[in-house]
C-alpha cells in the first residue's frame, strides 16, 4: 500500500542513526594518555637522536678546527720569539743595571779634600744595585779627617758607611828627651800622619751608564771615543 508507512503511529527507525550509534567508540582517558605518552616518547627519541647526531657532527667539526689550529702553530717561530724575548730582557736588564765607574771616580775626585790623599782604592760591585768602596786615605791632622768626613757625608753620589782603621803615625817632638840619641826615629818620620779607611757605598741608579752616540754599531776603537785632553783637564786633582 503506497503511503501507508507514512501514516503508521509506530515510529520508524532511522537506519543510519542506528548504525552510527553502533560504531561509536569508547575512548578512555587512560588509553588516551598512554597513546600520547607513547607517541611523545617516540617523537622525543627521534628528536634527541637527530639532535645528538647534529651535535656529534658539530663536535667533530670543532675537533678538526682545533687540530688545524694546533697544526698551524709553528714551533720554530715560537722558539725564535722566546729566544729573542729572553735576549731583549737580558739586554734591557743589563742596561738597567749598568753603572759608570768613571762617574764614581769623578764623584770621588770631587769629594776628596785638598789635604787628603788616597793611597789605595777598592771598588766592589756586591750586587746589581750597589757598589761598595774602600778608600785608604792619608792626611796630616785629625781636623782634616773630620772635614773629609763632613764632605763625604754631604755627598749626593757617595754615601759614607763609616771610617775604619783610624791610625795616627806621629813624629816625636824635636827634643832629646823623646828622641834620645837614636837619630833613626827622627829620620824615618818627618811628618805626622793620620791614616784611615773611608767605607763608601754608591747606588748604581745614581751613576747610570750614559750612551754616547759614536756613529753606529760598527765602530770600536778606530778613533778615540773620549777626548783625552778633556779627561786630563778634568782630573788634574786625581789620585
Amino acid at each position: 500500500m503506497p503511503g501507508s508507512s507514512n501514516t503508521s503511529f509506530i515510529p520508524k527507525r532511522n537506519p543510519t542513526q542506528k548504525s552510527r550509534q553502533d560504531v561509536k567508540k569508547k575512548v578512555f582517558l587512560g588509553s588516551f594518555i598512554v597513546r600520547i605518552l607513547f607517541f611523545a616518547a617516540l617523537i622525543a627519541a627521534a628528536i634527541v637522536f637527530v639532535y645528538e647526531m647534529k651535535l656529534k657532527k658539530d663536535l667533530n667539526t670543532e675537533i678538526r678546527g682545533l687540530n688545524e689550529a694546533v697544526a698551524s702553530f709553528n714551533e720554530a717561530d715560537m722558539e725564535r720569539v722566546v729566544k729573542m724575548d729572553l735576549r731583549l730582557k737580558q739586554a734591557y736588564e743589563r742596561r738597567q743595571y749598568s753603572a759608570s765607574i768613571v762617574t764614581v771616580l769623578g764623584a770621588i775626585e770631587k769629594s776628596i779634600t785638598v789635604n787628603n790623599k788616597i793611597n789605595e782604592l777598592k771598588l766592589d760591585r756586591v750586587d746589581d744595585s750597589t757598589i761598595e768602596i774602600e778608600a785608604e786615605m792619608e792626611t796630616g791632622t785629625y781636623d782634616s779627617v773630620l772635614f773629609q768626613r763632613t764632605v763625604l757625608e754631604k755627598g749626593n753620589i757617595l754615601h759614607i758607611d763609616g771610617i775604619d782603621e783610624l791610625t795616627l803615625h806621629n813624629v816625636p817632638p824635636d827634643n832629646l828627651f823623646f828622641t834620645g840619641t837614636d837619630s833613626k826615629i827622627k829620620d824615618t818620620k818627618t811628618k805626622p800622619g793620620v791614616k784611615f779607611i773611608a767605607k763608601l757605598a754608591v747606588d748604581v741608579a745614581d751613576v747610570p751608564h750614559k750612551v754616547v752616540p759614536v756613529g753606529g754599531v760598527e765602530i770600536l776603537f778606530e778613533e778615540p771615543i773620549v777626548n783625552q785632553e778633556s779627561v786630563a783637564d778634568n782630573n788634574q786633582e786625581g789620585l
Partner: protein
Amino acid sequence: MIFNSFFTQIVMAALAVGIIFVYVQPTFTSIGLIQESITQYQEETSKVSEVNARLSSLVSKINSISASDMKALLTYIPDEVDEVAVSRELLIMSEEAGAYLESIKYEETVPIPAMVNESSVEVVRHSFSLSLIGTYVQTKTFLTFLEQNNYPLEISKMSIISSETGIITSDIEIITYSHN
C-alpha cells in the same frame, strides 16, 4: 582495533617509559656532555688561534727590526763570548788609553752573585781579570773605553794602588755576558 586492547596499552605505556628511561634520558645526558665538549673545544680553539695570531704578530715585529739594530743586540748579548776576541779588544783599549796592560786572564763563566735580584733574567757571566799600569788619566781613559764598548764590560771589582811616582797599578775584574 588493536590499540584498544588493554594489553596493547600496557605494552605501549611500558615502551614509552622504556624509551624515555633507556634512550631519551641517557641521550640527554650525553647531549649535555657533548655541548660542554663543544664549548671547551671552541674555547681551546680560540686560545690556540689567539696564540697563533700573537705569534705571527711577534714574528712580524722581529722581522721588522732593522739589520743594524739586530746586529747591535747580538753584539750586546752574543750567543757565546769569544774570550780571545774580548782579551784582544781589552789590550787594544789599554793601548789606545796609553796604559800598560800587564796581564789578562779569562776566568770562564762565573756564578751570579747571591744578592742579585730574584727577578733577574738568567744570563751567563764571563769574568776577565786584568792588571793595568798607568797614570790616573790613562786608567780613567781605559775605564771610559770599557763603558763605551758595544757590549757590556762591567767592572765587578777594582783595586787601585798609587805610587809616589804617580803611576798607579789597577787590578780589575771585568764581567761580560752571553745569551747561552
